[in-house]
């Protein structure tokens, strides 16, 4: 699994989490920056997964395949899910949803790294 893309995903998610949680604390509904952030995080996550699949075809794959695929699917769908539910909640709690979702992304990346490799 690409260390660079894993780091980029983690950093982007944490940045989004800070922005969203601060907005929630300041009683702000999710704004354009937050929604753009979920798109960016989702894009980087998909890149990370794409790179992992390419490496997998190249020979080095996950040690625990089912677990990896489960985490991978969650990683790809979570920012989109946070975007949808965040749109439905145009209050501070929408920001909280995006913040919580963004906090979970680094954990998924970490777990994927743990089950990766021979």
């Amino acid at each position: 699994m690409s260390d660079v893309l894993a780091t980029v995903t983690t950093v982007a998610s944490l940045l989004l989490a800070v922005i969203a949680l601060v907005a929630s604390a300041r009683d702000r509904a999710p704004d354009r920056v937050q929604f753009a952030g979920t798109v960016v995080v989702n894009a980087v996550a998909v890149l990370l997964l794409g790179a992992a699949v390419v490496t997998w075809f190249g020979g080095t794959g996950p040690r625990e395949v089912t677990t990896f695929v489960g985490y991978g699917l969650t990683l790809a769908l979570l920012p989109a899910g946070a975007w949808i539910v965040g749109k439905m909640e145009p209050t501070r709690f929408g920001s909280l949803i995006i913040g919580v979702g963004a906090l979970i992304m680094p954990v998924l990346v970490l777990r994927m790294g743990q089950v990766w490799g021979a």
Partner: protein
Amino acid sequence: MPDGLNRGLGRVLVFVYGLFAVAATSRASVQIATKFTEAPVSYLLSAVAAVIYIVATVGLVRGGTHGRRLALACCSVELLGVLAVGTLSVLAPQDFPDQTVWSGFGEGYGYLPLVLPVLGLLWLRRGAAAAPAN
């Protein structure tokens, strides 16, 4: 929903409960399908937790008298479960050879399994006070 159970903080709870439903279901399925005999008690507990998270999510989304009652029951069982399993896993770790969602009061999940039912019960209580009697 007219009673607003799935609005505001309720929507955050729905989101997180939904995530836990997916996470716990996936984890229990993998454990039961691949290595059930290693720790059947742990894995069955994971499965029970998964069902409770699913039903709680449904209750919170639906709202109304029935959804509320469903969510109340699930959050209560969940709180008892995480407290009981958490205590047992600390006192008698040999009975829990593999982790469950509720082991060590949910330490593997950032203690969210302990926080969630408390938040859920508070939210249901607050909502019940605001909503009409029936």
